[in-house]
C-alpha cells in the first residue's frame, strides 16, 4: 500500500507537469494572438 501511494505521488507530479505545460502553451499562443491583432 505504501508503494502504491508513493507511485501515485510520482504519477500525480507528472500529471501536474503536463497540466502546467498545457497552461504555458495557452499563455504563449494567446500572447502571440494578442500581438498579432
Amino acid at each position, binding site marked *: *500500500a505504501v508503494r*502504491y*501511494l508513493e507511485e*501515485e*505521488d510520482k504519477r*500525480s507530479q507528472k*500529471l*501536474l507537469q503536463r*497540466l*502546467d505545460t*498545457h*497552461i504555458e502553451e*495557452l*499563455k504563449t499562443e*494567446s*500572447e502571440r*494572438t*494578442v500581438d498579432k*491583432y
Partner: protein
Amino acid sequence: KGLEEIRHQYLRAVNKIRGDMMHYIQESKKRAAEMIRAEVLKERQQTARKMRK
C-alpha cells in the same frame, strides 16, 4: 485591450481548473489510501473468524 482582458480571464479560468484538479487528486489519494486500509482490514477480520472457527 479587450483581447488582453479575455486572455487574462481565460488564463485565470485555466489556473482555477488546475487548482481544482490538484484538490481532486489529493482527495482521491486520501480516499484510495482509506479504501485500501479498509479492504485489508476486512480481509484480516475474515481470516481471524475462519481461524477461530
